[in-house]
């Protein structure tokens, strides 16, 4: 219903909302990654990130907190980058954000 075409809509804006999750931990990591790392990713990894966001919160949380690893190699690479996203991002590391 009310479907509209999305002329010129920025994929990043769509993803920005997909980074809003039910757990603070995910919000922090996904948002920092989207702002800092995502723009420079090759298309293939961008696509993997978009798929990654389609998964359930506890799954993402487990992987990011070091519990188990995904079968999909593209996800494994993403997870490594996400785990350090807060600390590659100077804005996010200052204690007064």
């Amino acid at each position: 219903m009310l479907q509209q075409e999305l002329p010129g809509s920025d994929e990043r804006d769509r993803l920005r909302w997909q980074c809003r999750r039910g757990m603070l931990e995910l919000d922090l990591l996904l948002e920092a990654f989207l702002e800092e790392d995502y723009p420079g990713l090759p298309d293939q990894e961008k696509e993997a990130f978009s798929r990654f966001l389609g998964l359930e919160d506890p799954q993402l949380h487990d992987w990011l907190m070091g519990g188990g690893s995904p079968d999909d190699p593209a996800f494994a690479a993403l997870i490594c980058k996400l785990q350090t996203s807060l600390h590659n991002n100077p804005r996010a590391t200052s204690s007064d954000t």
Partner: protein
Amino acid sequence: MDMTLPRRRFDTLIIGAGGAGLNAALQLADSGLRVAVVSKVFPTRSHTVAAQGGVNAALANVLPDSWHWHMYDTVKGSDFLGDQDAIEFMCREAIPTVYELEHAGVPFSRLDNGKIYQRAFGGQNQDFGGPQAARTCAAADRTGHAVLHALYQQNIRAKTHFFDEYFAIDLLRDEEGVALGALVLEIESGDTLVIEAKTTLIATGGCGQVFRTTSNARINTGDGMAMALRAGIPLQDMEFFQFHPTGIAGKGKLITEAVRGEGGYLINGNGERFMERYAPTARDLASRDLVARAIVTEINEGRGCGINKDYVLLRVDHLGEEIIAKRLPGIRESARIFAGLDPALEPIPVFPTAHYSMGGIPTDRFGRVVVPAGEGAEEVVPGLYAAGECACASVHGANRLGGNSLLDILVFGRAAGKDIIDYIKENPHHRPLSEPSLERAVAHLDRWDHQPEKKPAGKGKAKPAAESSVRELREEFRKVMEDHAGVFRTPKSMAEGVKQLKAIRRKLRGLRLKDQSRVFNIARIEALELENMVDVGMAIAVSALGRKESRGAHSREDFPVRDDRQWMKHSLYFREKDRLEYKPVRSKPLTVKGFPPAERVY
């Protein structure tokens, strides 16, 4: 103004798809009503997913238990501010509610005999304050997710109509005050839609994001609470906000109490174990509120750590790598990821983190929204319901017990669902939509685009609109809340906080959107959320300044003790003129004798 907005009609509208909203929806859809559920994020991304600990019910599967003991603990935990009729109802209903969830498919952890396993948590006792009880039912460490997932699946089966990624803007009410539905915005397209309904349930969850340091997800901006305020409904007991003492500084992520249980301790900027001064015996294991206040006192008195001296340190390195790995799995990874350090080598910077709002939209035990009706009486707002963390039934009073919040959302979500069924039987027809109410809602949205570029009204000091973006103002606001309406409350600081919030409110009125595109305009959503947060923040600050005693989570330096003679009453904050009213606590339970106020010793 364009009033030809698309309209959809349902028997009932539910705003929010967390545990409260989905449990209500399920009762309604199962009874054959047409139910619309609006959620700003996909339902299973609601904040309920974060609840890992579990849900309380006196099933007595592990140790002896009874709903009456559960009730006693809850009344005592509330510091005697909870309504005892609602508390009795919740503790009794806990038992069938958990069994109903089990039938809905929640995979609770089990004992060898097949019964639901139950954990012991703080604040749970047998026999009215006697030995430890074990009352918390959990589905491994994914209780919240398991509940959401099961309820979502059941709702799909029952044909509940979901509006995923729709943002509710404002409630619609007619001239007689009857609830008519809401104006909502589809986030993807930016299109607005009017959802007309015979009843409306607000189930939008908490508002932890109003504080700079919080354990709550970004979506917890108190939208439903602010919608109620704008519709002329007061918020109850907003001064009571639960803080967890150890959040990672600047991030808010919780570091579990278990860390201190295993021997971790706090130090200040001078390297001193300061808890020894505040609680000579319990030290780092003193109650949550006491530890949180001690941390903030150290910082306020200049003994914080870091360049800005704005946090203290939690040491665990002395425990050694092996113990950390064995007894505190997860902590090392969390500290690495969120604080950028290895706790086996370095201490973790911590600060109290805003965790749970005890206050909210006032309701009775049927989930019906109630407002004052002169001289101590209350009346129901026809067709309007609230349940979950956004509501105040009030079962948590001045402090909530662990595991009682999932219980609250499920019990009162269910109760609201059942009451709505009866209401619709008696009120089977849609009422005409009130155009003035719709116009106000549309104007609230449109003002972000069309407001003329001039200085905001009020004192000339406020910055012109363009200088201060929504994000900057949000951070300024959250800092004011943390400094002036957080853990540590002095009259001077609270009054200063209210003053600064008023200035922020003025600045906010002067803001408009730079990017006025419609499609996926997240800046627009964030602007609306900020408006909501500022309204809720003001409710917290004004209510805190008003309550001249210390009770539960509300602690003032100038009135350090509980004062039952004058203050055993609920506060009600009205947005209009930032006004406060009070109403009595309901100390009479439904069937048993009430528990009179006693000193709270643990």
